[in-house]
């Protein structure tokens, strides 16, 4: 082992061994951090959408459905977004672990920090510029199978006219306290408002998607007691239609 040093130095001098340039390491580190950033942003988006969906849960339906709290929560929770949040947070952790000093932080602490920060940022996105609603809307438009397997089963609660729940799209304008609604099963209903409460997010215009609580009169007529948007946070004092 006498000449190990000389052997190595000779190889270096001959150009057989060269130092990798600094930019290669910096690029690698940058790409890892970029990946962490991308997955963290996705985690924020998932948090915002989950917050939107939780806020959109129709808690007042539970007594009308005669369901227990556990069953109602189990059906209403936005699993897709919650599982998505966990999955992307784990990927972000995995990438973070591969940054220069990421290995110093244990999984539970890093994972909890990512979840907490994405939740706080998700709250900000949701409450400041309705980011959660935007994400949910884009998912319904663009994510394959999202509507079929995730959005519709939750909306199906509203396809029970016998129990007083109806949802769908307004296909004729509100005239003489009535409008026509195409329900989620593409069946047409005459919905009357004599009178009913209408949430501020609803304008009763054609193409608007709404949820109606009321009573089924017959196979074609439904009497509305309360009308809410199918796809918006239904907060704020309702107005009475027709106005008195």
């Amino acid at each position, binding site marked *: 082992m006498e000449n190990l040093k000389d052997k*190595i*130095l000779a190889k270096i001098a001959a150009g057989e061994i060269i130092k990798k340039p600094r930019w290669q390491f910096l690029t690698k580190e940058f790409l890892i951090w970029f990946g962490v950033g991308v997955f963290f942003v996705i985690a924020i988006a998932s948090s915002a959408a989950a917050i939107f969906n939780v806020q959109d849960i129709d808690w007042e339906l539970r007594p009308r459905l005669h369901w227990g709290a556990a069953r109602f929560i189990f059906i209403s929770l936005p699993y897709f977004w919650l599982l998505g949040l966990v999955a992307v947070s784990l990927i972000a952790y995995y990438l973070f672990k591969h940054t220069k000093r990421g290995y110093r932080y244990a999984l539970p602490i890093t994972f909890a920090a990512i979840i907490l920060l994405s939740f706080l940022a998700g709250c900000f996105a949701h409450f400041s510029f309705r980011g959660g609603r935007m994400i949910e809307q884009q998912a319904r438009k663009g994510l394959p199978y999202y509507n079929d397997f995730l959005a519709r089963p939750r909306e199906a609660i509203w396809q029970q006219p016998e129990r007083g729940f109806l949802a769908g799209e307004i296909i004729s304008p509100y005239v003489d306290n009535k409008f026509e609604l195409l329900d989620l099963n593409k069946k047409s209903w005459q919905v009357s408002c004599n009178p009913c409460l209408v949430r501020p997010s609803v304008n009763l215009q054609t193409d608007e998607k709404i949820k109606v609580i009321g009573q089924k009169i017959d196979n074609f007529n439904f009497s509305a007691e309360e009308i809410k948007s199918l796809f918006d946070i239904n907060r704020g004092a309702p107005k009475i239609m027709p106005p008195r």
Partner: protein
Amino acid sequence: MTSMNLPACDQKSDEEIIALTLADQGYYACLIERYEQKLTNYIRRLAGLGAEDTEDLLQDIFIKIYQNLNDFDQNLKFSSWAYRIAHNEIISHWRKSSSRPRLIGGNEVEEFLHNVADETNIHVDLEKQSVREDIQKVLEKIDLKYREVLVLKFLEEKSYEEIADILKKPLGTISTLISRAKKLFKKEADKLNIKF
């Protein structure tokens, strides 16, 4: 640059030598000199290779260190970084050759036991040849992830922080590994009916 015209670097820290090496490759000789014996011991302790294989592996390690000098993080101790590269090369070599590491042998058993005895209630008569063989048997039974922390802690005498940096694991994980490794050492000794 050959050993005949080595730059003077006795008074310089590792980090200073790295900075000099980045500008003048001749200074790399200083790092090789400083770490040749330490890394040779580490290879022997962890991989248990013969002299020729040890030298080949050591050469690969120094080449890897040189190639990656621009990646050295100044916030880290150079020795931790060098041991990390050495560790990865040893594991990689071990996997390629699929030979079982022998861990330690000869007089190093004494060194190991003196150190481990400080933290356990093991008391041994190191004069006995049979005791040395028994210790070897026990260590061979222990999983690699525990053996490597035992080597780093009790033979290389690295701190918990340094071991964390070498193995790229959180400090808490290293504490747990060392604690379990010590318990396993005693448990395996009991299983083999070896009394220390």
